[in-house]
């Protein structure tokens, strides 16, 4: 059993996990469905969103240059990072230069991807996660299991236990409301005391140099406004030409993520505090991170760079909904993760991810920017096959199958022979155990073949005419 299979086995054996996954993803799917039903123009908007992102990606150099120039005009300091490690070094360097003791962080999947939480801790800087879900998993010492709901794998009972152990005056914690209220009280002073606030960016607005964050809790603004320094880490693919395109993207992103029409707090941050401003940071840094984006571009995964990180693909994925996010063993779980992870971590170690997919296509159907996820997933399988990663037994089974499939006469002989053997394993009409069919019969019965093959019976029927 490899590492992936081991994690899957553990996940499937955990009944609490399935309960937790169902509670959130069921709500997410039904709320999204309602939001899309109330938006008949969705199909057109989805195509527009796709084309806007493709336009930006095709002209990435142009828009990155534009963004940098405009961001500099707002007083932002721009940094470029080729790798996650380089990005972390830049962020830690800024924190150290600011003599930061405490850093608040607003949820950013890029931050998780590049290992920023760990880098901050390794540098001895207190890290305070402010998104409620990130706060929960920080207390639990875990990693996110979903890109929108990082603590999706936790039930309310488990959250209650964590807060009881870690919060000051947690109260009864009998309801989710009481848990939220306890987190609010416990994080309040941390927001105000932080030296540096770190956020991601949902969009980089090329023509103003602003960055956009979306949250429902308001934690992004509380993270970025009080501290002296605001650091943004953003993937270079997050560009949109202007605020106008950001509006189309927001309509698509928010409905797809949570089923709301707009996040409660949608903020465009442009530079540090301006003359006269009462609040806001004195320094504003934007770290533009490649970390594999240009490699994806080169690998034929340009379509994946459209991704808005809405999470709809995983909410609708039958595999994700059984095994949860941690089983994927990577920052990004679900269908989008199965495309991204082999590029980030290498195909050999993550080859199971694209393979553990039924290619049912629902992820593509719900994707707000129409990323052809099943096609990209199958693309990885092609690479895995070419590179010889397909397990030997299935590779040989397929080669034997192909040999016969190209030789119809032999095929029919072999198939009619097999059809005569199979019933020997049957009881009634069904086979519950048969050599070479363990993957099937461990959990299901296999119907016995009806008799001779269709072609053989058809030939007989035609001959009798």
């Amino acid at each position, binding site marked *: 059993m490899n590492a992936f*299979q081991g994690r*899957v*086995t553990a996940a*499937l054996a955990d009944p609490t996990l399935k309960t937790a996954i169902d509670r959130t993803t069921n709500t997410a799917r039904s709320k999204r469905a309602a939001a899309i039903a109330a938006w008949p123009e969705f199909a057109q908007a989805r195509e527009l969103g796709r084309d806007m992102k493709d336009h930006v990606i095709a002209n990435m150099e142009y828009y990155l240059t534009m963004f940098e120039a405009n961001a500099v005009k707002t007083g932002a300091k721009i940094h470029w990072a080729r790798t996650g490690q380089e990005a972390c070094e830049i962020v830690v360097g800024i924190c150290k230069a600011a003599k930061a003791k405490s850093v608040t962080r607003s949820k950013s999947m890029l931050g998780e991807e590049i290992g920023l939480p760990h880098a901050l801790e390794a540098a001895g800087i207190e890290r305070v996660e402010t998104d409620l879900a990130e706060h929960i998993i920080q207390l639990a010492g875990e990693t996110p299991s979903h890109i929108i709901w990082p603590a999706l794998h936790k039930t309310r009972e488990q959250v209650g236990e964590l807060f009881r152990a870690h919060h000051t005056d947690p109260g009864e914690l009998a309801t989710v409301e009481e848990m939220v209220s306890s987190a609010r009280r416990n994080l309040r002073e941390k927001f105000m005391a932080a030296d540096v606030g770190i956020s991601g960016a949902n969009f980089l607005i090329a023509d103003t140099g602003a960055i956009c964050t979306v949250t429902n809790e308001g934690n992004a603004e509380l993270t970025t406004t009080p501290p002296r320094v605001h650091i943004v880490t953003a993937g270079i693919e997050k560009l949109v030409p202007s605020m106008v395109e950001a509006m189309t993207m927001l309509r698509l992103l928010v409905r797809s993520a949570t089923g709301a029409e707009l996040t409660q707090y949608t903020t465009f941050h442009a530079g540090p505090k301006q003359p006269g401003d009462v609040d806001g940071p004195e320094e504003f840094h934007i770290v533009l991170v490649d970390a594999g984006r240009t490699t994806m571009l080169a690998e034929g995964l340009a379509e994946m760079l459209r991704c808005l990180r809405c999470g709809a693909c995983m909410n609708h994925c*039958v*595999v994700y909904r*059984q*095994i949860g996010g941690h089983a994927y063993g990577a920052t990004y779980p679900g269908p989008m993760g199965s495309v991204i992870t082999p590029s980030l971590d290498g195909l050999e170690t993550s080859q199971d991810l694209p*393979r*553990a*997919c*039924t*290619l*049912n*296509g*629902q992820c*593509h*159907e719900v994707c707000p920017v129409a990323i052809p996820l099943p096609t990209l997933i*199958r693309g*990885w*399988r*092609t*690479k895995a*096959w070419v590179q010889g990663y*397909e397990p030997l037994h*299935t590779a040989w089974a*397929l*080669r034997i*199958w*192909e040999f*016969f*499939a*190209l030789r*119809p006469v032999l*095929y029919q002989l072999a*198939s009619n022979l*097999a059809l005569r053997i199979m019933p020997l394993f049957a009881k*009634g*009409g*069904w086979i*519950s155990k048969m050599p070479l*069919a*363990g*993957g*099937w019969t*461990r*959990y*299901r*019965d*296999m*119907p*016995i*073949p*009806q008799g*001779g*093959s*269709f*072609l053989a*019976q*058809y030939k007989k029927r035609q001959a009798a005419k």
Partner: protein
Amino acid sequence: MKNNPPRVALFATCLVDAMRPQIGFAALALLEQVNCLVEVPMGQTCCGQPALNSGDQDGTRKIAKHNIKLLAGFDHVVVPSGSCAATIKKDYPDLFETDPVWHAKAVDLANRTYELLSYMSDIWGWRPKNVSCATTATYHDSCSGLRSLNVQAQPRAMLASVAGLEMRPLEGANVCCGFGGTFCVKYPDISNAIVAEKAAAINATGADLLLGGDLGCLMNMAGKLHRDGSKIRAFHAAEILAGMGDGPAIGETA
């Protein structure tokens, strides 16, 4: 269309050929009702989907070329499976993107290829007459047919004309059953968890029959239902439409 009535090849699919020939005969019966000149090309084996979905594009191209040659000259090619039809219709052309000669041939085949249920309804506007099946049934949409070929309303519309048949909606009818071709044997534990949920939804309908348009998915669901002791019986929708619903269901002996 060159011929009137059209010359139609029935591509039975490897699963139907081996496991449930009755679906092939049901397809023949339906195609004959709309006066097609149906032939069953004897050189047919498999569409190549298992190889394609395992990443073996070279192997799939060989099989695709075999089928493109085999199915040349027919006005229509009809397939009683959404996923195999989609392989021919959608994937064959993509496989030959860099080979203009074969690409043109693949596109030509793709344009002539149809999934059986949508073919009967969309091309012929066919509805069953004098077919009865006095029972309750529910319908599962197989993913490839649904999402690649837009097969959804057609089977339901045709089944609505079967006398005595009461259709019950299936919660999550458009959600994958966990079959996924080789997926179900490569990752049996995950596949089982998915089909267990599907089986629960099917049981919850209280219907007597489970119907669908793809034998792979039907075998997966029927096999799970049978293992769990459910009394629900499974048929390909074409069998019911062809009036074969009184025969043995999947896994039942005659």
